[in-house]
């Protein structure tokens, strides 16, 4: 271990932590720190996107998966507009019919104001009740989603009026989950690409350092230094740089995520803001550990491989 570093003015070595190889000098170290910081940052963004997608799909699916909506059309099968009184009467009959079903927790008819609120994004806020025929909607909460139960509910409701529609949200839910699944796979693929790029970049940086100090490494080799003796020095060097870089990347990533979290926080019921729970945050903090481990292993195999080419 070199306890000394160079005092350039006097050519005198000064006490410091040691390497047999001059690994802690040169701009290549800074390049590797910046590279690892960028990789960590990108990995954090990809991981955060995955967390956000998980949160969104959970939010959407938990609201829809144990529910169905019964719609009493505003126009009957003979193209006659149903009056509000007819709709309310049908609505009441449907609720009465559903009463005996044990798997139904609640069946609530939406008021005209609530229905108007639902259609207002498309038809405008100024629509007056009564100006336009609106359907009757009954929101049904189920204790469990069982196809057989849904079938028997459908039959019971259709017996009241054949044009009553039952929306199980299945198509919508499946589309959303498929989209979210595709996005999650894409985010995982991006994370994998980042990991592979990190491995390639670290291996390249290590090879470059070894080429730069080839004479010194060869000298240690000829003096009887084992492959592990040389490997440990380069491995330690790579690990220290990676820890520095990944912590920098983590810091930058946390700042961006915090900013995104603040900017995206809203009461929008469809799109929840980016909020991370303790498990997500732990996952982000584990990134520098994972990247440092990747660097450690990569450095080890790269150095041993290059040393293996020496006699």
């Amino acid at each position, binding site marked *: *271990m*070199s*306890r*000394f570093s*160079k005092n350039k003015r006097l*050519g*005198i*070595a*000064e006490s410091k932590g*040691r390497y*047999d*190889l*001059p690994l802690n*000098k040169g701009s290549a170290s800074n390049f590797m720190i910046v590279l690892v910081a960028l990789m960590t940052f990108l990995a954090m963004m990809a991981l955060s996107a995955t967390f956000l997608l998980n949160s969104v799909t959970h939010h959407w699916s938990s609201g829809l998966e144990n529910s169905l909506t019964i719609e009493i059309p505003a126009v009957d099968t003979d193209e006659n507009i149903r009056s509000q009184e007819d709709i309310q009467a049908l609505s009441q009959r449907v609720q009465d019919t559903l009463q005996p079903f044990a798997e139904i927790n609640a069946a609530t008819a939406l008021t005209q104001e609530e229905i108007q609120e639902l259609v207002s994004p498309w038809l405008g806020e100024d629509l007056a009740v009564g100006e336009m025929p609106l359907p009757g909607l009954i929101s049904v909460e189920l204790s469990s989603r069982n196809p057989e139960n849904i079938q028997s509910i459908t039959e019971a409701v259709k017996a009241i009026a054949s044009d009553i529609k039952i929306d199980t949200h299945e198509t919508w839910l499946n589309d959303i989950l498929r989209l979210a699944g595709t996005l999650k796979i894409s985010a995982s693929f991006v994370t994998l690409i980042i990991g592979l790029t990190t491995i390639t970049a670290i291996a390249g940086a290590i090879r470059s350092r070894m080429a730069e100090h080839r*004479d*010194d490494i060869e*000298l*240690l*080799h*000829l*003096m*009887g*230094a*084992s*492959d592990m*003796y040389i490997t440990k020095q380069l491995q330690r060097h790579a690990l220290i740089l990676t820890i520095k870089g990944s912590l920098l990347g983590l810091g930058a990533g946390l700042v961006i995520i915090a900013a995104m979290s603040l900017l995206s926080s809203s009461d929008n019921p469809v799109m929840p803001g980016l909020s991370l729970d303790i498990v997500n945050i732990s996952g982000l903090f584990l990134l520098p550990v994972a990247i440092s481990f990747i660097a450690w292993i990569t450095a080890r195999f790269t150095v041993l491989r290059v040393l*293996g080419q020496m*006699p």
Partner: protein
Amino acid sequence: MIKFEHVGLRYGIGPEVLSDVNFTLEPGSFHFLTGPSGAGKTSLMSLMFLGRKPTRGLVTMFDQNVNDMDRAKLSKLRQKIGVVFQEFRLLPHLSAFDNVALPLRITGHRESEIKSNVDELLEWVGLGDYKNVLPLTLSGGQQQRVAIARAVIARPKLLLADEPTGNLDDNIGFRLMHLFEQLNRMGTTIVIATHSQSIMEKFGHPRLVLDSGTLHVHEQSNWVQKNIEGVY
């Protein structure tokens, strides 16, 4: 201890720089390796310090065949060999102390032991006041002494030196030769590559003479006698 049998060496597809080299060095022997420039001295030395493998023939070091030896065993074997390179090959970013300490650190000695041994040896070679100095600020002679100290610090079983006294004045050169002889008396086998007739004649050890890639072994008395006869 060291046995070369029909050893040949070529670089790539070039001609053989060493051809059919045969010799045996007994433990505790002292030899000079000499010959004209380009005769293959450095190549032969590189085979002896296990920096290369021969392209043909059998090399036995410390009674072990090194041709097919695995890397871990080769490293252990190299730790028994001290080398003084012609161009010194000091690590420029390390102090004189750390350069000399390298072989001990490689073999895992304790720092307290390293400090006392290195300090003592640096004093002995006259560099006690330069131990924290970087090699580039030392003169050629001082760098050579650091290189020699590094080669002998771990008390190797075999010491190989390529022109070790080339940059030194006669006084220091003879002093270092006495150090080599002292090591030799303690059991170290020594091979010194040199052109210096004065050193070879003064110390009178047997010579390995390389000429155009082939080796001849001469006992000193015969060598002197033959050359005297040749002159007169």
